[in-house]
């Protein structure tokens, strides 16, 4: 258990150090997210009544799209530089590699998502600084990366990684998207635990099931 944690933390630290030095994934994903939010401003009339109706939807569409973009790079970077083999040859359990990759993906996504809060506030007057929304963001992001990290390992080994990841990823995380949008509507409408609680528990249950399932399946996915 201790060595498992230490290896996972080592993979995580490596990814974070890499990201801190190059800022490759982070900057690209953030720029993309801002562009998506910007384009949404022209997709519909951004008046307060319309925003109250479709706001949660656009927030989560923006998050899901940027998430796919970011997760695609999780293993693609390793593969392009030829470091994936090295990572797999390391004498650590595959679950530890999965946990480390999961943590780094989640961190990058969460940072981008939080940085988008002011963007949505400025462009749509959508106030996301809400404790319930923060909790929903964390729970849903963990669910996204639990599934996405695994599928990005699959997609990275194929010719069509950009197509394959969303194709596999979106149907599976559909319940999280539904839950996130519904609970965000409730949270922004000012409902407390009464409106948000049910969905939040639902998303956390999804997270737990797919965290276990993904760390089990990771072994089969990467085996040569």
């Amino acid at each position: 258990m201790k060595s498992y944690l230490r290896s996972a933390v080592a993979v995580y630290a490596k990814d974070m150090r890499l990201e801190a030095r190059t800022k490759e994934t982070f900057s690209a994903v953030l720029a993309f997210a801002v562009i998506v939010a910007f384009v949404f401003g022209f997709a519909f009339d951004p008046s307060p009544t319309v925003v109250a109706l479709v706001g949660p939807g656009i927030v989560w569409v923006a998050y899901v799209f940027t998430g796919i973009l970011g997760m695609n790079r999780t293993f693609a970077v390793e593969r392009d530089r030829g470091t994936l083999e090295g990572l797999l040859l390391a004498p650590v359990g595959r679950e530890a590699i999965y946990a480390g990759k999961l943590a780094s993906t989640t961190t990058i996504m969460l940072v981008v998502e939080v940085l988008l809060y002011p963007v949505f506030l400025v462009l749509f007057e959508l106030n996301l600084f809400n404790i319930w929304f923060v909790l929903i963001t964390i729970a849903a992001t963990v669910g996204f990366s639990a599934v996405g990290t695994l599928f990005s390992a699959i997609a990275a080994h194929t010719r069509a990684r950009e197509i394959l990841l969303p194709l596999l990823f979106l149907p599976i995380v559909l319940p999280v998207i539904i839950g996130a949008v519904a609970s965000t509507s409730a949270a922004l409408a000012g409902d407390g635990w009464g409106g948000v609680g049910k969905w939040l528990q639902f998303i956390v249950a999804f997270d737990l099931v797919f965290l276990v399932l993904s760390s089990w399946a990771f072994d089969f996915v990467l085996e040569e």
Partner: protein
Amino acid sequence: MGTAGLGIRQALLGLAAFLFLIDLYLIFQYAPTASEALGLQVQRIFYFHVPSALLGMISFAVAAFASVVYLAKSNSPGHRGAKAATPESRPARFSIMRVAILILFPGVRIWLALRRVEKRQWDRIAWASAEVGTVFFTVAIGTGAIWAKPLWQTWWVWDVNGTLTFMLWLVFIGYLIVRSYAPTVERGSRWAAVVAIFGAAAVPFVYMAADWWEGLHTERITGPGASGSMQSEIFVTFMFSLVTFLVLFIALVAERTAQRGVEESIEELRREVSA
């Protein structure tokens, strides 16, 4: 595999064709025209729509189950070799207890028969089931839209069954595509198995989420199939249709599984020749 069981497969296909003729007669002649609330003649599409949707779900269950067994039988790196040493064909010792158990519990017999199925075969079954299931889901979605339009003035209703069917259809498409993009057959099989298992694990979540979502946004529309009492002619026709589709499903999956087996042995021979 190969030509083994060819006779049975042909007989199954023949039976499916024969049953379909009777089914068509039942649907268009025997079953009464439905009430106006159910769409009069249009309601007859129900005998295609519901069985194909159910068979789609069943095919998903088969694919997911076969995938679990396939992955369980693949040697994960940790215990490679350990599994291969397990004697698969131990001589069965005769005992009264054993015979009694086999006679009393048919499930045990099925279990023992299933245990003898080899690893590659499970993968072929999952693949065949996914392919046939995709077709059934496509039929279910298409017929559903055709039925919903005259009945509810809309092609698509975001109810639980519709959402679940659509989601599983998408998972199946991902399942088939991931195989075609995989660099080797073996990896494609493993990846596809993971996709099927993930899809199966997501089913209860999609079901719950769609149910709650529906409660939030639309008033519930109970499908005509769910309405309490069914006329006996309608019931008989429906059940017959279900059996017909089931036989067709089994016949197609068996055929496709056998074809995969032949394809794989051809591939093996080709490799032998070129080596």
